[in-house]
């Protein structure tokens, strides 16, 4: 079959070359990968995930479960692209998935040939010894759909936000009628259609609308919608809805690349998403060459693909005869139409078509079923038998077996915001009933499948939506038409089969769920449809159960002996169709993922070797490159220099909250474990906040600027949260009282000056006017004044154990002040050195404030004893906090003074080597002591002096450690007081 001779509504004639699984093919502009391959006679397009069975195309839309391709060449590949939606482009390179080394010869498929199928629950029950983890790697290597790309190299996806009066989802007969009625009524209309062109089933259905051929009516309608200002978005799928906003994903060509996410907020939405055709379960119903009848019709009408030379059709409704008539007219031989219903169930229109088919040589069998597809790598025939006597089989030769078990209305609807559905026995499906305000279904989603009724339903929905949206009502005549007859469907779910055959009656192709799996699942005691879904993975695939969900529920109902209406179907969830993570991320990727906060010294750090790292939204220097090749080496140099000479560090990232007003002191008393009201003006205090549950929330220094004014500092990572915390109490418990809370974080830069020469350097930089007040500063006291005409406060406080000062200055003078301090002989140090200095002194770093430690755990017993009734104070008396094994902060050092241990290492005692009694929270190599020192949270049963083992099997192995005082260096604190 040469692609160039084909005629289809979407083909444009021009030849394209493409490559699939290493072989070159040609197709036409307008083809999809699936249609072009079918036209080239390629049937097998992938293997199934679990049993690795060869699979071909089953459907012609996004419900396709089998033909998912990986597109591109390594490393820029995109997995799981739907072949029926992947538009052919010149030079396209695609490959099949779930096979190794090739589609034809797959090693893992031999597994099924050897030992039979792994049934439902096989993994749960088989790989539990010695543990699942031992099996996980080899199983995962074989599992999963496709392989994630290393580098997809995709452009960021814009998100467009808009609003309209009426959003119509679906551009088939119902959707177009609804959009037309709404637009004629004056509504601002947006219509989204997942296909590149509108029309839906009108692409192939026989009939007429307003005296025109269906596709001519589609063209005329689109032209009128355009004149009325409606916006038509094709290749755009409604994927989710939430809170009145609907998300539609534009993915031209069926491939991520130049996508757009439309976020549309309509006053009314009309969901006209049609109905999805479903298969019937029979043995080997997954063989390449088995296809849904509607899919075969779409491939024929759109792309001129004749799906086979000799066909067998298998169905339970009248539409099969209309389809067979069209397939015959297109030059295919229909060997048989196998109908499960009695002959007299067929309506008049279908009966006359049936008579014509019989006259043309087609065998039309009533009350028969296809028991099995025959063939090795693709369909070679069908085994057929009367339902009354399934043993009386006949074999028909055919090269395509088309099946249709009816249609499931798309109640999935791209939105999961409630709405109800009911079982309709005449359709053998669930149809939408009550919907939330602002939303209506139309056409197929309401179970309406006849063209005339679909147009009327769509028109009514569109008129109503325009009216409710506050627009006018359309008075012009609604489109009228007639097409294929009513299906007159009699539900039929699976053909007779013995137990061995049930293992090959596939329900969910993507998860290889079979009738045998459902039976086994019931025997295991999983009865509810949601449990069955999770045990068999039925409905877990990218098709979200659109092919197999209802079929599985119906067979489950049969096996349970209960009505399908009561068994129900599993809950449907967004997204309606797979969406690339890139599209969800939108423009918020890379450096645009979050905002970056910069201190006034940010540029200086970058220009002077600072290696910055994120802390919350801030960027702070970890170390400076002139001090070493990496953080570890540089940190040691910088920390040693602080203790020997001195240094400066940028502390501007500290959160700073000014609290003022007559009730400021009392307000802060409730927010901190100790009282702020006892702080004298001009002095400060180290304080901690508790959460409501008594755990330590944050720590910082609180300065009393005036009788009624305080400056509370928070740790850098918690600044934003602490501001909200303060504002919350201001607006709740303290509402109406005299207290204001103001964020002044960015109003002040902070330069910490630490080390033995810090006072000398400071005096040199600030000059004689400051000398007296700086010399007079005692520990935790501060002085305020001007420097360079700008506000400056100097606080004597230390987190390094050295004599140290915090300069709170206006950002305008921060760089000048910093550079003067450098000129005075103080080198900058980064967070690495800061952590070393803190751990040497036993000050909390950050991993100790992990939301699981109480003040008592952190050695703050003195603060608790003061008994200030603050937030979280009540719950400190919980018995759980006084258990003997409760961890508390303690120091840790290697027994031999040489070993190393890292933060995160688990600590075990000799008598319980497999049960940790604590873990290392922070550890550093101390240049001052020449050995590794750390902080740890360890059960109170182990006291100072105890010897434990720090276990770190994945990094550096074990190290014998001794518990020590948390203060490793200068225990008397003499250096700080100098």
């Amino acid at each position, binding site marked *: 079959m040469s692609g160039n001779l084909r005629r289809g509504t979407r083909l444009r004639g021009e030849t394209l070359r493409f490559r699939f699984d290493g072989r070159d093919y040609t197709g036409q502009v307008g083809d999809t990968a699936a249609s072009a391959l079918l036209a080239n006679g390629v049937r097998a397009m992938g293997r199934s995930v679990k049993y690795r069975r060869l699979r071909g195309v089953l459907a012609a839309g996004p419900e396709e479960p089998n033909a998912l391709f990986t597109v591109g060449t390594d490393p820029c590949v995109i997995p799981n692209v739907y072949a029926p939606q992947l538009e052919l482009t010149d030079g396209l390179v695609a490959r099949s998935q779930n096979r190794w080394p090739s589609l034809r010869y797959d090693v893992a498929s031999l597994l099924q040939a050897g030992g039979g199928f792994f049934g439902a629950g096989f993994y749960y029950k088989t790989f539990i010894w010695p543990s699942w983890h031992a099996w996980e790697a080899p199983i995962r290597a074989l599992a999963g759909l496709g392989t994630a790309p290393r580098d997809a190299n995709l452009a960021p996806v814009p998100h467009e936000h808009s609003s309209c009066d009426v959003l119509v989802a679906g551009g088939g007969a119902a959707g177009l009628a609804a959009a037309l009625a709404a637009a004629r009524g004056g509504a601002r209309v947006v219509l989204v259609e997942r296909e590149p062109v509108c029309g839906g089933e009108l692409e192939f259905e026989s009939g007429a609308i307003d005296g025109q051929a269906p596709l001519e009516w589609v063209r005329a309608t689109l032209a009128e919608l355009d004149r009325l200002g409606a916006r038509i978005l094709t290749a755009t799928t409604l994927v989710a809805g*939430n809170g009145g906003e609907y998300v539609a994903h534009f993915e031209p060509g069926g491939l991520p690349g130049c996508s757009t996410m439309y976020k549309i907020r309509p006053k009314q939405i009309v969901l006209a998403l049609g109905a999805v055709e479903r298969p019937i379960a029979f043995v080997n119903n997954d063989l390449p060459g088995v296809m849904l009848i509607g899919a075969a019709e779409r491939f024929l009408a759109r792309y001129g693909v004749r799906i086979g030379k000799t066909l067998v059709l298998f169905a339970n409704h009248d539409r099969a005869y209309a389809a067979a008539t069209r397939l015959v007219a297109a030059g295919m031989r229909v060997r048989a139409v196998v109908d499960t219903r009695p002959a007299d169930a067929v309506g008049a229109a279908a009966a006359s078509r049936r008579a014509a088919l019989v006259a043309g040589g087609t065998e039309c069998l009533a009350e028969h079923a296809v028991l099995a597809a025959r063939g090795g790598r693709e369909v070679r025939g069908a085994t057929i038998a009367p339902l009354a006597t399934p043993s009386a089989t006949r074999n028909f030769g055919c090269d395509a077996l088309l099946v249709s078990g009816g249609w499931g209305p798309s109640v999935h609807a791209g939105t999961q915001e409630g709405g109800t559905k009911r079982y309709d026995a005449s359709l053998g499906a669930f149809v939408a009933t009550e919907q939330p305000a602002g939303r209506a279904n139309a056409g197929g989603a309401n179970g309406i499948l006849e063209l005339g009724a679909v147009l009327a339903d769509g028109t009514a929905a569109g008129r109503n939506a325009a009216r409710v949206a506050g627009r006018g009502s359309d008075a012009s005549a609604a489109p009228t038409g007639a097409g294929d007859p009513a299906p007159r469907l009699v539900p039929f779910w699976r053909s007779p089969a013995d137990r061995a055959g049930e293992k090959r009656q596939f329900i969910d192709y993507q998860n290889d769920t079979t009738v045998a799996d459902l039976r086994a699942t019931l025997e295991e005691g999983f009865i509810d449809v949601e449990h069955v879904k999770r045990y068999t993975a039925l409905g877990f695939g990218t098709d979200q159960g659109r092919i197999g969900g209802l079929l599985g529920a119906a067979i489950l109902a049969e096996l349970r002996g209960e009505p399908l209406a009561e068994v129900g179907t599993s809950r449907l969830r967004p997204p309606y169709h797979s969406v690339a993570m890139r599209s969800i991320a939108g423009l918020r990727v890379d450096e645009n993922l979050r905002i970056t906060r910069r201190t006034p010294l940010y540029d200086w750090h970058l220009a002077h070797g600072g290696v910055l790292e994120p802390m919350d939204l801030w960027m702070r220097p970890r170390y400076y490159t002139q001090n070493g090749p990496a953080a570890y080496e540089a940190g040691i140099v910088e920390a040693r220099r602080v203790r020997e000479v001195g240094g400066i560090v940028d502390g501007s990232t500290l959160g700073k909250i000014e609290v003022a007003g007559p009730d400021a002191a009392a307000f802060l008393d409730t927010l901190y474990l100790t009282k702020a009201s006892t702080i004298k003006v001009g002095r400060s205090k180290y304080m901690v906040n508790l959460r*409501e*549950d008594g755990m330590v929330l944050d720590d910082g220094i609180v300065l009393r600027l005036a009788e009624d004014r305080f400056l509370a500092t928070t740790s850098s990572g918690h600044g934003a949260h602490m501001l909200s915390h303060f504002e*919350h109490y*201001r*607006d709740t418990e303290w509402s109406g009282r005299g207290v204001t809370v103001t964020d002044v974080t960015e109003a002040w830069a902070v330069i910490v000056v630490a080390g033995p020469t810090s006072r000398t350097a400071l005096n040199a930089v600030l000059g004689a006017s400051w000398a007296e007040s700086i010399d007079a500063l005692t520990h935790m006291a501060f002085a305020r004044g001007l420097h360079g005409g700008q506000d400056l406060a100097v606080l004597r406080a230390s987190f390094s154990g050295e004599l140290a000062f915090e300069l709170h200055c206006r950002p305008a003078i921060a760089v000048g002040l910093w550079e003067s301090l450098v000129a005075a002989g103080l080198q900058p140090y980064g967070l690495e050195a800061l952590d070393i200095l803190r751990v040497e002194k036993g000050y909390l770093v950050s991993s100790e404030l992990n939301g699981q430690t109480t003040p008592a755990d952190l050695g703050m017993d003195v603060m608790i004893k003061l008994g200030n009734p603050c937030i979280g104070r009540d719950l400190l008396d919980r018995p759980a906090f006084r258990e003997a094994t409760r961890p508390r902060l303690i120091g840790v050092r290697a027994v031999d003074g040489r070993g190393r241990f890292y933060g995160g290492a688990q600590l075990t005692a000799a008598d319980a080597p497999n049960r940790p009694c604590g873990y290392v929270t922070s550890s550093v190599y101390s240049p001052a002591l020449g050995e590794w020192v750390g902080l740890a949270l360890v059960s109170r049963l182990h006291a100072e002096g105890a010897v434990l083992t720090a276990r770190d099997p994945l990094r550096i192995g074990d190290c014998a450690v001794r518990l020590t005082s948390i203060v490793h260096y200068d225990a008397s604190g003499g250096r700080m007081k100098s």
Partner: protein
Amino acid sequence: MNRLTCPFCGPRELREFEFHKTLPEPGSSPYARVYERVARLDESTEHWQHVLGCRAWLRVRRNPSTDAVLETTLLGGGAT
């Protein structure tokens, strides 16, 4: 995306707001306030902050089953 209506800023997308907590029953003990909060299906009273907006704290009554916002009121009245 859902929206909340800030008394100062009008209807704004949920991403501008930060959930703080579901309010406990009035008169609960300190222990119950923290550990015995009841998640009701029909109605939930919560504190939210318009953290990426005017920073007002709000009391939001909503129906968690339907996501419907029943009432949004200002807490405190802000700083004076």
